[in-house]
């Protein structure tokens, strides 16, 4: 359910931004140094995403360990 909410929010926010956002910090970071920063941001997002997944997996295992102890 959380994934669901997250995804729909994501789609909506990106659709909302599709038209003419004013150039700001995001643009500056994305376009800087031959667009290399766009790559760094993408890699960062992927690592954070996988990290988040690991975190949730960790919580899931922790809950099971707690139940085992009882």
């Amino acid at each position, binding site marked *: 359910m959380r994934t669901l909410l997250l995804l729909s929010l994501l789609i909506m926010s990106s659709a909302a931004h599709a038209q003419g956002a004013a150039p700001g910090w995001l643009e500056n970071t994305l376009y800087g140094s031959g667009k*290399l920063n*766009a790559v760094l941001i993408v890699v960062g*997002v*992927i690592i954070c995403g996988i990290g988040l997944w690991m975190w949730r997996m960790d919580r899931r295992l922790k809950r099971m360990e707690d139940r085992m102890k009882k």
Partner: protein
Amino acid sequence: MKHWWKFLAVALLLTASIAGLRVPLAPDLVHVSPDRIAPGEVTVTVTGYNTDFTAGERVFLENDSQRVCATSVRVIDGTHLTASFNVPAGMRKNLTDVVVSGLRYDGALFTEALGEGIASGNCVEGHLANSGFVFPNRPILYESIRNLHFHVPMWFAMITLMAISVVFSIMTLATNSLRYDGSAVNAVYVGLVFCSLGLITGALWARATWGAFWTNDVKLNGAAVTALIYLAYLVLRGSVPDAHKRARLAAIYNIFAFVLLVLFLFVVPRLNAVDSLHPGNGGNSPFSDLDLDKRLRMVFYPAVLGWILLGVWMFNLRDRAARLAEQLDR
């Protein structure tokens, strides 16, 4: 050694990521100033990217395949040089290219005093020193071409996980048991992780290249439909309380949706070969028509395989955890 594929996954991801970030872009010209010339003595400053200019560079102007050779070239540093020309009057076209040792900046100079054409100079072509293993340097993309090795594998991993899920769904229907149902939904959950990562990274890359987070594109529609289908799959599961019925209905929907999705992703884009910004669609040159594309592939394929294996590994972990939880429940 039954864990070999996990080591393979890490090794592939490591090589592909390092190569994806470290391999330099092919040298190119990025800036020429001034941007207009008139007949007479002209000095032009050229800025290169990843070039390593040395004293022997050959510079000329080209206007409708008629050339003006540089009278003198002065190299400032590896990425800057100035060249002087004696520009004749009577060029045929408005835009003149600047060529430095085989690198061409199209239409760099707006040219005044047009006419019937000029006598073409017999200029030496020259070429830059071989720069080794490089990625293609393309306008609009520039350094962000590296995202090919990070964004695109997300979709490959996702579709692989969804295919795994369909296999478990087929087994659910074939055996009419609950044994494989959990695996099917776990594969979908991990697939959705890659789907979200693909959507976010795609939106960011699109903003950096096409200027908008979301565009109306066949591939993007495909991504949106995929996300909607699997969210609907989860909603369907959530709305059936009986476990056996849920397993059966979800499996049927999964198989049905997956086949149509594959048709949509791989057949319809070829049908609607008109309006896509993605390479290989609608008149956009595919990455493969770049002469250096072999080098992109040498990094891209390991990256794809590595991410697929990592996805399978994540699915494996989640599935085992779910099985343990089931045993605890009993």
